[in-house]
């Protein structure tokens, strides 16, 4: 009895309705809420001024030293064109581990970790935005909140982020 009960209690969202749920880290950019696959997140840390890189796009703030590793920092607010660009003690950097690379993204704040089942994510309609809808997996609904589920790995390794050499060449 106890054994049967235990797994259900640990994953109520998954257990109750039987759908396959995935965990997402949600963060805010201005008024918008975004969700990314939690497995891509390495850590979350405060913002520290990075060392700027010459002739890099504006949304690449520069590089920081993360325990001896040189990590580029991307300000998603600039990239997505949302939110006020200010750096306060509450500004947060999410360190992502994607495709063998370590990249940091600046966001306004981290909200929480939520489970979303596949049926909770609706396909995003085609719309014009600063971020290509190719990188949006869908729109998640969580009560009143709408979460923009981003395929962060594809986005970060894409040519437009100019973080990767081959992509940069392809874009040029």
């Amino acid at each position, binding site marked *: 009895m106890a054994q049967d009960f235990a797994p259900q209690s640990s994953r109520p969202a998954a257990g109750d309705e039987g759908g396959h749920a995935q965990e997402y880290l949600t963060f805010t950019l201005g008024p918008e809420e975004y969700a990314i696959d939690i497995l891509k997140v390495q850590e979350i840390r405060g913002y520290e001024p990075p060392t700027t*890189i010459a*002739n890099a796009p504006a949304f690449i703030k520069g*590089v920081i*030293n993360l325990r*001896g590793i040189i990590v580029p920092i991307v300000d998603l607010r600039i990239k997505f064109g949302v939110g006020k660009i200010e750096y306060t003690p509450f500004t947060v950097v999410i360190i992502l581990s994607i495709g063998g690379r370590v990249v940091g993204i600046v966001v306004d704040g981290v909200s929480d970790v939520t489970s979303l089942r596949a049926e909770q994510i609706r396909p995003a309609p085609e719309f014009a935005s600063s971020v290509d809808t190719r990188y949006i997996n869908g729109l998640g609904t969580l009560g009143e909140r709408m979460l923009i589920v981003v395929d962060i790995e594809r986005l970060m390794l894409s040519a437009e982020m100019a973080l990767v*050499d081959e992509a940069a060449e392809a874009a040029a």
Partner: protein
Amino acid sequence: MSIDMSQFYQVFFEETAEHLATMENLLLTLDIAAPDAEQLNAIFRAAHSIKGSAGTFGFTDLAEVTHILENLLDGVRKGELALREDMIDAFLDAGDVLKGMLAAHRGEGETDAAQAAAICQRLRQLTGDDAAPPAPAAASVPPVPRRAPAATPPSVAAPDESGHDLFFVLDGDAATTAAALDNLNAALAALGRTSVVAAAAAPGQPWHLRFRGATDAETLRGMLEFVARNDSIRVVPLGQATAFEDAPDGAYGFFGTPPAPAEEEAYGFFEPLPASPAEEEAYGFFAPLPDASAVPAPVVQEEAYGFFEPLPPVEAAAASAPNADAQDGAYGFFVEPQSLPAVASAAPPPPAAEKPPAAKEVMRPVPTVVKPGTDASIRVGVDKVDQLINLVGELVITQAMLAQSATQIDPVEFERLHNGLIQLERNTRDLQEAVMSIRMMPISVVFSRFPRVVRDISQKLGKQVELQLSGENTELDKGLIERIADPLTHLVRNSLDHGIEAPEERAAKGKQPVGTITLKAYHQSGNIVIEVGDDGAGLNRQKILAKARERGLNVYDQMTDQEVFALIFEAGFSTADQITEVSGRGVGMDVVKKNIAAMGGRVEIDSMPGIGTRMTVRLPLTLAILDGMSVAVGAETYIIPLGYVIESLQAERGMIKSVSGVERLIQVRDEYLPVVPLHEIFRVPGAVASFADGIMIILEADGVKAALFVDAMVGQHQVVIKSLESNYRKVSGVSGATIMGDGRVALILDVSTLVGMARHALPAAA
């Protein structure tokens, strides 16, 4: 003159252990039906490397076994022999024997001579090599061939048409000796007539054969070596036989069963004594003999080289144990009274003859065993070291942060806290230094092995070579150091063998008879460059092309010299006319290329016929330390590799010259140099704009000079180079990044590119 080789033994042991492991892994994965050529090559290379280093360091027993192994592998590799299951088994067993030998040299076990001999035999049989003497039976290789030279008898005579007297002692028991004799007889019968003068009364007693035929002494010796104890063999031309007959015979009588060189016996009988080889004890041992005074002093003296050395007890055990059965004989001889009279008369000649080798042994103390513990090192994964370095970096930052906060605390009230923080700072710095030093080593670690290599090989080849080293203090990553050693050794050997000509040839060409090999290391444009140069004959373009055609490579006459020279890096490519011990098998150069490519580097060859050849190895700087000058531009700090900096100066108005309305030139003494304003190129806001207010740093890269304009110079540091590309992409004008003492990232400037920018279009004066 004397170079202490023991410091390299550890490296050799580790390398060899690695090669053996590689070999074993590859052997195990090898598909017998359709062996992968690449894998066969890799196995062969491993064997070749072991042989090479073992030879260099004087571990002849390892070299001997690997040599035979290599021959067989070479046959397989070239497709002359079909790979069979039993070969793989033999290879694996050979690997085990080699491991055993290695362990013995480390002082961790015992060499098993019989095993080694057996495996040599087995490999030879597999090779089916006719050149190998036809003696398939008894164990023949001496336990530690290092001692073989000492045993070389004085009686090697010039070839004698009429024949030779052969004295030898068979090794092993009755059954194997019988087989050995049969084989020997058969072999000798093919060459001439043999008669038995005196057969051994018992196993271990000397044989005396009379051989009549035109075969020279060396050949006969070679044949005997496969059945008899190496050290017991005497080949005496017939005419002179009588003169020697008494002496060796007497000597055998005296030496009893194993007429091994004195040294070996020394281990045998000193072994039971405490390891501290006090003289009294030594004599004390002899004392119980019936006639102690008859034991000739010279023998003791000569043997003393062997045992009065502060030998680790392990060796004594290692050397004596394999001869366990022989030892009985040895002890037996001492109690055999009738042998003793011979002692006085017979013993002196052999020791006298043995004197030079014995003296040599003293100069090179105990090369077979490195005392365990004295040079202890542990091998740790590089990732662990990297993690350590990163964590210490983090600690330094935390410490700096604490120190910063502490400045706001009243130093009087919190004196203890302040003292603690000062202590912390010191400890952190020491720790950081210590951790950094784990990875960084000067290249002299590698270079210092070459004087010996060059000396040995040039002697072997009969060439006169002088080695010049420069830039030994160039520091590079330990990982690179370890991996560059092998390729460099190959390059040096190659230069010695193929590059430098024989003295007569050099003299004929009007060169100094003494050739020069230069080894040079330095940093250049973000690379570590290691040059191996010689003033030898240079590469022969035609010969390389011809050889390439012969091998069916796609070549044509219009290829550039560079392309042609690059052909020598092809696997199995050798233009040497004959295979020598040093090179000529065509392995080595492809290994060199492979290893260097694996490190992310490249090799280039420059060669001029008659002038010489220069091999240039370029390695990337990953994790190498760089001497850098830090400069400030706006709020940013950049590092300029110090090697490019010629001077720095504050420009005066009059020095700045304008061309077409734009100030772009600076006159430094009598030169006009282009000005590269870093803040413009990197678009750094808030930088000093007026040339007169900042600092001009005169740089030179690729022979071009330029003045880099920055706000200020900050200082000079040794920085660890980190790749920017591992998580980001390549940035023009930046070769890498580093982490400064305060934890911030500073970019390292790519001076070549920046100087190049001065020549080409500047970013339209933003």
